[in-house]
């Protein structure tokens, strides 16, 4: 990356703010607004090999979802007969400062890596996961959007209890 992008949207502060806002929406349970942050062809991806996984087809993933599946997940969470949400799950994303890995002003894209801790609490139970996000952001007429949110878990292959919200 050379120099400061002339496009305000692609400047470091704007990019990092986006990632922080995105996590905040999840912590607040604003899933519909969160979904709006994806492009039409956006993907939410939790690879089974964490950061060592090359693609989503040769190896499986804990989640690999397009907007349709994300919508399904959100609608189900809103359903009173989502039995596993009695009691409901709550989550807290604890983010480290994002590192901007790449900005392509011409294409209007940026890549950020953000280490995180994710805590999901439900009733008397709590699950804590660590890892790092890799956001692929694109500039659109409506502002920045996620083309992909990749969640690289530490120890993604170990046996996990249910993880019910969005990491």
């Amino acid at each position, binding site marked *: 990356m050379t120099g400061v992008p002339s496009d305000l949207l692609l400047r470091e502060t704007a990019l990092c703010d986006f990632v922080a806002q995105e996590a905040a929406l999840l912590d607040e349970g604003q899933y519909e607004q969160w979904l709006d942050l994806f492009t039409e062809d956006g993907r939410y991806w939790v690879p089974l090999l964490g950061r060592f996984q090359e693609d989503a087809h040769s190896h*499986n993933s804990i989640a690999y979802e397009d907007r349709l599946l994300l919508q*399904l997940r959100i*609608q189900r969470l809103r359903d009173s007969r989502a039995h596993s949400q009695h009691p409901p799950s709550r989550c807290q994303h604890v983010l480290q400062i994002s590192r901007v890995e790449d900005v392509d002003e011409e294409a209007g894209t940026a890549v950020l890596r953000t280490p995180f801790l994710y805590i999901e609490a439900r009733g008397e139970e709590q699950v804590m996961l660590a890892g790092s996000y890799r956001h692929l952001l694109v500039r659109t007429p409506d502002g920045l959007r996620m083309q992909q949110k990749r969640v690289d878990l530490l120890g993604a*292959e170990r046996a996990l209890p249910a993880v019910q919200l969005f990491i």
Partner: protein
Amino acid sequence: MYRDQPDRIRALVQEDRVHRDLYLSQELFELEQEHFFANTWTYLGHASQVPDAGDYLAQEIAGRPLMMVRQADGGIRVMFNRCAHKGSQLVSDSCGNTGKFFRCPYHAWSYKLDGSPLAIPIKTGYEGTRLKECESGRGLSLVPGVAVYRDFVFVRLSAQGPSFEDYFGEALRSIDNLVDRSPVGRLTLAGGAMRNIIHCNWKMYLENINDTVHPLSTHESATRAANALWAGKAPDAPKPMAMEQILPFGAGYEFFDNMGGRVLPHGHSVLGTRFSIHSNYARLGDYEEAMRAAHGEEKATQILTRSPQNSVLFPSLSVKGSPQAIRVIRPLAANRTLVEAWAFRAEGAPELLFERALSYNRLVFSPMSVVAHDDVHLFESMQKGLKAEGNEWVSLHRDHHPGDAEVAPQDVNGTSELLMRNQFRAWADFMTLRMGATA
């Protein structure tokens, strides 16, 4: 309470109900480790996980550390992952290649791939000692019962017990159906495993595999969301793979009842003998052509039209022929179970079939699966609820007729709880098989 009390154990399984101790008692869990899993045949792994000489796969079964090892001659051996010297595990990675021999990291005792002793440092120190006559001088202990059936590797921990063929019998046709979906008859386990820790007894999970009455209420939220998202689409609109797989979960009681089931001796079963939620995946012309070329018209049709919901190879393995996926049930404690879901790539079949298996496992068996969330919640809920007073029994009365568990094989309706009663009957049999004569 239950040790050396086979009659008490058998009394926990009545014809039409089982006692809660089957799920709750840690003592029974320990007796299962000792007796039940010594007498039964448990799935260990798939030969494609150890393709080359020196490849190993370490796997704990019923609390014992095992490893399956590809031999120089291409065969597979299963031995205990325990140095004959002091007991360190010879391998601590879950899989890898050991080269031409195993060498214990602690004192460098080494063993050939077949487990026989190779070398011990300071050999002179053992001259005149009893080492050679002891277990420690004989190398690695081999698992007494090992069977490799079309690359599926099973073990029986006891030297006695039913033979592999007698034990599984007709249930092996479910493995055949899966393997025969490769026109060249070869599968490779691929894409990693969905691995779940569930805080419930393993038998609860296993009986749910044969439970067709739960989807409508348990998975109501997931199927309602799927239906709502798909509402308004033309009936013949091409479905994305995920929709193709998730929408059938909402099928009604009649669908599940009509799909039919078959109970087999020793706890095994096939659910969906007529059809299942997997029956209507998009067809693939070229592949069907390749299958006809490989198997002939009649057999190819027979293989491809058979897509049961689940076949249970009691007590550790559940098989789907389409999608090409298996679930492996590993009991960890009375109230803790590890469930793994694996996918197969079938040689000579289109990559799309592998993608179907990956997609299905991700949608339905991932720790993040919206379908599994409600299952897991209910399993864990039962594990807690069963501690209530006033009723120590779990009902299995649906479609019960006195003596019906005596007859196997037997075809049943898809919602019959005989599919579960048959499992518990086998549980009692193999639990008490070698506990001695009854008082």
